[in-house]
């Protein structure tokens, strides 16, 4: 059963990822990304990380992808990109070679070198039951890792302020002073004409 679920969700994840890359239309890429994110959420359920599966669907598929689609539609960049034009010659073969070599390196480390994952338990917090997952995670976050949680709160605040600053229309005072100067020049010219 677990094998079947894993294989199906792996197929869903990988086909979605390939769809993100190969779609000409950015909206299609966003929808393929939803497919991948749901597949990853299924894997989280399979690994008994139920809270993270819910967060994955709510935050990633519910918020981040919606943000992507908003930006795509608001900016009108949903025109298809011509994928046949290669801007820098040799970029694509090199990119594929680099991606394949990263995969090869990970594969080598994973299988050849150590023969599977190794390591030790470090956080001294066992995972426990899947039904208690949210409780255990919350207790760990707000006791041992409470400083990190505060730091992420700070990070999110900075991100929100930064987004607002970046997306407001730039430098209104400068434009108004420019207008004022132009008005002054116009008035000067009119005065000169009147004198003539």
């Amino acid at each position, binding site marked *: 059963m677990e094998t079947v679920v894993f294989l199906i969700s792996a197929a869903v994840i990988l086909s979605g990822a390939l769809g993100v890359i190969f779609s000409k239309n950015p909206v299609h*890429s966003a929808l393929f990304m939803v497919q991948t994110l749901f597949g990853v959420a299924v894997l989280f359920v399979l690994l008994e990380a139920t809270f*993270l599966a819910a967060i994955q669907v709510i935050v990633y598929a519910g918020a981040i992808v919606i943000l992507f689609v908003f930006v795509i539609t608001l900016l009108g960049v949903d025109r298809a990109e011509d994928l046949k034009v290669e801007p820098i010659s040799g970029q694509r073969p090199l990119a594929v070679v680099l991606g394949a070599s990263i995969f090869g390196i990970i594969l080598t480390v994973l299988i050849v070198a150590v023969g599977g994952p190794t390591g030790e338990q470090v956080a001294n917090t066992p995972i426990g039951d899947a039904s208690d997952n949210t409780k255990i995670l919350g207790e760990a976050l707000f006791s041992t890792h409470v400083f990190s949680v505060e730091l992420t709160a700070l990070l999110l605040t900075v991100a*929100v302020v930064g987004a607002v600053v970046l997306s407001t229309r730039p430098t209104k005072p400068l434009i108004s002073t420019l207008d004022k100067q132009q008005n002054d020049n116009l008035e000067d010219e009119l005065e000169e004409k009147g004198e003539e």
Partner: protein
Amino acid sequence: MSITTTWYLLLAAILFSIGTTGLLVRRNPLIMFMCIELMLNAVNITFVSIGSHLNDLGGQLAVFFVLVVAAAEVVIGLALVVAIMRRRSRTNADDLKILGG
């Protein structure tokens, strides 16, 4: 055939490679961001599967923080894209070489 942690790590490696290749191939900054999200998801699968393998909650805690950082990164990145698009209607990553001075 039972599914071991190695299978999850293998899937994460494939997903990460796809994300890397897409990031290098595509020129639309929005799709480049999506590829970064794919790579982050691959790392998340790795964290959770290793945490499950070692019966350790640390993996899931790391994924929680990765999610927060990913959300912040997307917000700032999309704000940057909006700010760039406002000045130049047709933008791809190669057009930004004017930033080099």
